[in-house]
């Protein structure tokens, strides 16, 4: 374990990943200070104008919106859209900052829950074998028959909009990889003598899986989990981009990008006029996913015995 941590910090690319993650954690933790919420629901991105057109960076909050806040008695703690506004006057900067929390929430929750389901099904399948294995693996195949994004889109279309529904869809179609991975490891580990010994001593099956097999086989699953946090966040953002994800105005990077869709070409004669609508949210998504991938990539190299001693 110590060796792993040391390698993570001595490898240049994983160090970049760790630093990036650290910055994102800071942003998520201090979101209420960096971008103070203007309403009771902090995940609702405030609007800087009622205008449909995006407004350039530095755009001051419009007078009619200021009136609304004055009327409600809300103190306006910042009055400029630092990164401009998206379609409909939504403040991009605010969406980015609070979107960091959304991204962490989606990534960590979906991967943890999907990981638990996958490990549960995979370990039962491998340990008991026979028709249980056959049955569970065919069910896994059925879930794997759908392209991930298509499956998630179908489920969110049926369940309706909302971040919780997006997460449910991602979990329902996101556990299969872990099940297959842990099944493979346990299939080989269960022939080891320590498992035989435990069985001979009459230890209960559940206890053998939990105490003996999983501690020895769980690490590749955790690496896989680290690497798929990024893809979960991308898929959630893709759903928002397609218009079936988080509700309109929710602080979510995918939606920020989807707001840019109609404006990206720019007005006639002013090509690229609305560059900020895609650039800033794009950078946040890419860096977030990149950070997880860099860490995961290095973790995998460290664990791969064939590459040991070469890093």
């Amino acid at each position, binding site marked *: 374990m110590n060796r792993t941590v040391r390698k993570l910090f001595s490898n240049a690319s994983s160090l970049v990943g760790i630093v990036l993650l650290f910055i994102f954690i800071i942003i998520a933790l201090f979101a209420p200070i960096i971008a103070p919420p203007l309403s009771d629901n902090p995940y609702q991105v405030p609007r800087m104008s009622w205008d449909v057109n995006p407004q350039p960076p530095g755009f001051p909050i419009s007078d009619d919106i200021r009136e609304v806040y004055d009327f409600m008695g809300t103190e306006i703690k910042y009055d400029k859209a630092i990164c401009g506004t998206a379609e409909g006057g939504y403040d991009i900067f605010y969406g980015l900052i609070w979107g960091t929390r959304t991204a962490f929430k989606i990534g960590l929750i979906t991967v943890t829950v999907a990981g638990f389901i996958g490990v549960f099904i995979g370990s039962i399948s491998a340990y008991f074998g026979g028709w249980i294995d056959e049955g569970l693996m*065919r069910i896994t195949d059925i879930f794997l028959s759908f*392209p991930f994004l*298509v499956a998630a*889109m179908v489920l*969110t279309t049926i369940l309706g909009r909302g971040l919780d529904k997006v997460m449910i869809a991602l979990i329902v179609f996101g556990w299969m990889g872990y099940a297959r991975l842990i099944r493979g490891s346990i299939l080989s580990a269960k022939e080891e003598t320590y498992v035989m010994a435990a069985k001979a001593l009459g230890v209960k099956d559940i206890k053998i899986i939990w105490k003996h097999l999983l501690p020895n086989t769980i690490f590749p699953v955790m690496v896989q989990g680290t690497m798929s946090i990024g893809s979960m966040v991308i898929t959630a953002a893709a759903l928002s981009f397609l218009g079936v994800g988080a509700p309109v105005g929710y602080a979510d990077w*995918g939606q920020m990008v989807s707001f840019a869709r109609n404006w990206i070409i720019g007005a006639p004669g002013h090509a690229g006029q609305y560059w900020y609508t895609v650039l800033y949210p794009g950078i946040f998504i890419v860096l977030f996913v990149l950070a997880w991938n860099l860490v995961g990539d290095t973790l995998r190299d460290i664990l791969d015995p064939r590459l040991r001693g070469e890093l």
Partner: protein
Amino acid sequence: MLAYIIRRFLLLPIIILGVTFLIFCVFSLLSPMERLATYIHDPSTLKNPQSVERLINKYHLDDPFPLGYINWLKRIVRLDLGWSQTANQSVWDAICQRFPATLELVLYSIIPVILVGIWLGVISAVHHNDMLDQTIRVTAIIGWSLPTFVFGLLVLFIFYGILDWLPPGRLSSWAQDIVYASSNFHSYTHLITIDALLNGNISIFLDALRHLIAPIITLSYISWAFLLRITRSSMLDTLRKDYVRTARSKGVDEHTVIHLHAKRNALIPVITVAGMMIIGMLGGVMITETIFTYPGLGFWAATAAQQLDSGSVISFALLFATLMIVGNLIVDISYALIDPRVRLE
């Protein structure tokens, strides 16, 4: 070997049946009323309670779950998939009309996946750890982290918004007039590039190609970035094998060692992944087509999802799952046939 292939074929109907069951489970989360909406051409029928009652009975939407499933399955087998509000035609017609466009896009996207992914992967492995390798590797990781919808918008922004080279859509309007309205243009395959060549109309071919380039790049870059990594590590493994060392120590020149001895063996696992990547592009079709307003299945499905046209969305998922199952079967069997170690078992 033969037993494996037979087993795979026997499992095929079970998996497809399982897929339909899963889809029906998801579909059943909707109320009978909502499900009815996917069978009706004229929305005003839904306002009359009596006709609603009659239609719910007609389509067996109130049946208990198992019966409902069997009735639904019967309709699916007859390709009676309901009515698509978004396309304003029956779902099956909507699929048939849009399928060629998506097929054309996916077919052409295979080319860069194979060429760039495998070619760059081999180069990267041969130059292990030097500047070129590091550059390729970092580019691949960044490509892997760049979501399709951001990348696609950037491509649209640069190549259409600023440079005006690669327009969205499938054809320019002048070409549309010729392809869809003119009697001189025969649609043999409905793949416009091929039809244009068959008709000897080069300008339409070029126009169709111009519209295809940006979607192709957007759809395929993740696949080849991933394939590149696989090729690289497989090639690195192979280059360390004893027979490669033997070949080198015999004095075989480096070019032959790499391309004749190592590459051929290294590519065996890559083929499976390449197949999976090509199948995996099906998932990206929705986003790519939406960005470039390319009139294929994905664009239609995304629009249907936004408008909560659940019947269309579900049929789309059923179609893509079937395509994916068949694709996976082909990949697995061809892998078994290609790899001599598996073949001889």
